[in-house]
């Protein structure tokens, strides 16, 4: 089973995005595309010819593979149904953030590779948002790690100490804000926009087409699902198995599906009820989240749990 976790993430990540889109459409009074639409989109993109700018270097062609590999490698040490990990790949929350940083680094380079203003703008904003998000995310994860006595996600999840103290609620809220920012959703970024001046993620991948774009989109879905998984692993590990093998996986599978659906609906609700804020208002939102994360830590130390 532990070997299949990787494929669960790879295969179901477009579905999660489809659900978010569908729920969002319904909340906005539209019918919206079916939940399988992301799969059709990926397939369509894979079968298209590519247009590549003559200004670009090999960085541009390597980036889709690096981005895809980096987010997928993270799936190897994030528990989905069971806390056992496969292939001896060991990693923790710090490794997770840095593996994502590898993908982001190449993504930002590729954004600047074509020599256009939009790509540069996207890269610049992406790196700026990362500067605001990473310390806060790290601090929130530290609070959870300190409770469990380990930074390994599997150990935190297996410790079953989730939400055992008020500090965890603070850390959870900081982490949810971090995830909204990391997955490029409203109010930080708008995943549906192609209006030049407002895009961040879409700006960086503007020059991509065909199979490269498919890989980029897919990697983005995978990253989103991994981040959702990390949140539920750490804060709501109810139902996760601690064994290997296939037996007794019904409960973990059902609870995981429920948890993902809830998070997807939550994301859709946030996106539908909030407006995207101006870029330079982000520091106050994300700074506020940093304060939450810091309070989580202090509460934890003062209360001793």
């Amino acid at each position, binding site marked *: 089973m532990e070997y299949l976790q990787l494929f669960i993430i790879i295969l179901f990540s477009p579905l999660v995005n489809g659900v978010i889109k569908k729920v969002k459409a319904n909340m906005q009074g539209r019918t919206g595309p079916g939940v399988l639409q992301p799969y059709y989109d990926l397939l369509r993109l894979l079968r298209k010819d590519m247009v590549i700018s003559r200004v670009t270097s090999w960085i541009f062609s390597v980036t889709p593979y690096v981005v895809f590999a980096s987010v997928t490698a993270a799936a190897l040490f994030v528990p989905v149904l069971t806390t056992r990990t496969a292939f001896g790949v*060991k990693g923790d929350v710090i490794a997770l953030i840095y593996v994502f940083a*590898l993908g982001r680094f190449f993504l930002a380079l590729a954004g600047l590779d074509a*020599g256009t203003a939009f790509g540069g703008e996207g890269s*610049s904003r992406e790196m700026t948002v*990362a500067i605001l*998000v*990473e310390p806060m995310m790290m601090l929130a994860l530290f609070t959870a790690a300190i409770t469990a006595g380990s930074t390994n996600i599997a150990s935190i999840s297996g410790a079953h100490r989730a939400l055992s103290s008020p500090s965890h609620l603070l850390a959870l809220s900081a982490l949810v804000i971090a995830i909204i920012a990391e997955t490029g959703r409203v109010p930080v970024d708008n995943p549906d926009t192609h209006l030049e001046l407002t895009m961040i993620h879409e700006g960086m991948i503007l020059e991509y087409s065909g199979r490269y774009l498919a890989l980029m989109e897919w990697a983005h879905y995978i990253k989103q699902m991994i981040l959702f998984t990390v949140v539920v692993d750490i804060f709501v590990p109810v139902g996760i198995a601690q064994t290997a093998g296939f037996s007794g996986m019904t409960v973990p599978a059902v609870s995981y599906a429920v948890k993902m659906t809830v998070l997807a609906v939550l994301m859709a609700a946030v996106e539908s009820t909030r407006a995207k804020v101006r870029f330079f208002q982000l520091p106050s939102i994300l700074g506020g989240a940093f304060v939450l994360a810091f309070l989580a830590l202090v509460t934890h130390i003062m209360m001793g749990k």
Partner: protein
Amino acid sequence: MALDQPVDLLRAFFAFFENMVVLNTFIAGSACILFGAIASLTLLSKARNYSYLFSSVGSLLFLAAGGYLLYAPAFAGAAIPVTSNFSFGFSFDALAGFFVVLISIVSLFLSFYSVGLTRGIRHGGYLSFFYHLLLLSMYGVVLSSNIVTFLVCWETMAVASYFLIVFDRNAEAAKAGLFTVVMTHIGTVFIIALFLVLARFTGSMEFSAMRSAAASIPSGARNLIFIFALIGFGTKAGIIPLHTWIPRAYPVAPSNVTPLMSGVMIKTAVYGFLRICLDVLGPGPEWWGILVIAVGAASAVLGILYAVMESDLKVFLAYSSVENVGIILMGIGASMTFRNSAMHPLASFALAAALFHALNHALFKSLLFQGAGSVVHAAGTRNMEQLGGLLKNMPWTGALFLAGTLAITALPPLNGFVSEWLTYQALLLGFKSSSVVVKIVSPLGGAALALTGAIVAAGFVKTFATTFLGMPRSEHAIDARESSPWMIASMSLLAFLCLIFGVFPGIPLMLVSPAVFSITGSSLDLDLHGSMVTPQATASLSTTALALSLVLIALAAILFVRLAGGRRRTVIADSWDCGIPALNSHMQYTAAAFTKPLRIIYKRIYLPNRELKVSYIVKPFFVRSITYGGEITPFFERYVYEPVMRGMHTAATKIKLLQSGSLQLYLGYILITLIALLIFGT
């Protein structure tokens, strides 16, 4: 020593024999470097660039001997008698061995680079001479056994680096050289003072004797020594706010010297701090460690915040050195807090993280400075706003610079990632401490490290992309050509080591652990079978498996898109230009534009000044021209250094009144002094 068995006698004989071999290797290495210095002045001027090959042989010898020291029992080494009761002394232990290895690895590759870079330059002999002198004095610093030897080597290092900084003989270099000399000597004053205090209370000038007598030093004096060491060595290492000489000196020094200064010379300061505060003084009070973590965090965050604003390739890298020293200090500080609470295995772990990061920084920073040097050599400018698209003209240099960039940004699976991961873990283990202050400071240190990491990423994306990607921004960039094979070879080897040290961290940790043991007396508790497991099993990481899975997934992805998509055409076209044809290089994102959001968000730190001049034909409708200027305020220079310098200037002007040049007045001074002595002396 009683030797009752012949086997022991034999072992002792071999130990003696081995020590002789090691000693002779050191002497031979030094001789090689001295030959290099002589050769640099005597060889035909066309062949002077080959004098660096002497230093590569010397470095190899030092590398072998230093590596031996890591696993041999410490032994007192050579002494060169000067007077009856004083001699230049050198001693050999694992800590020194580690730093000898660190210097040797960098200088070995750098000597190849230098051969390529300095071919046919004017006064190349002098350059090579002082390069060799600098190298030898650095070996001297880490191997010296008493304070006088240390200071003589330390000052030789300062003098040699001064002549290297002013090598280009222009106004900028002269100013930077002067600034460096002044700053270095302010640091040296503190180092001399701390040595005097140490010698006063321990009654010895030998480090080994000081160590055994250190327990008898009163706590006030210990605190004084610690503070002086932090200031004195911190000046050389470039901690904020004593960093100001670094962004001035590094950019103007010749391109084959900067890697030595940044990669290695600042590590001798780290060595000095470790030798005095951790080795000689031993465990200190809790606030020492916390202060070191705080200073480290401040240097890391502020260093990289200033770096990211720079559009000068070398100044950027110089500020990034300040940041990395900060990271090293955070590890050292964590180690000191653990030692204070007698958690020795954790102290070893934290120190290992710091030393590993010092080694890694030596590798990737010399790689990056070599890359930057190649770019400057090829394009003739350090300003990245005039570069761009160099990856096409300089494919090797570009790819190797990218490798250094990935390593310094701590991206897995390269070496920077592993040492930063260890530093995070060391800081997080602070939670095991019983002190509430440590419990809060350590995770905040971790958050500072995360902030640093994210800004480093932004800074290096900006630097690499503006220099190597996109369209060329000037003729400089269009005309740049690939560097010589010597230079590419050196950078390739460094990049290779960055990869190996990341994917197989067991190898560098083998170099680190004896040095750690020699300080903390507790061996490094780091399980390396399959994956790294931290002490008390708080986390595990396997970069080997991670690297392998990254490669395999990428290959699988390539295969998958081929299978699922089939053969498709790829059309090469122009970038998207919104329908306006002829996108040109001036429309690209610039380095300044890239960091504009940070200037706005951190405006309280940067204090940016903006200047907008508009001249009108008919005000306010028809504009003739707009001039825009913007700069950030160098806070410490303006609000710390300038007032001090102004104050000193004022004081000097006042004191100058005493020196009127009139003989009668001077005779009057003597008379007044004499009367004063007669009155008060009796």
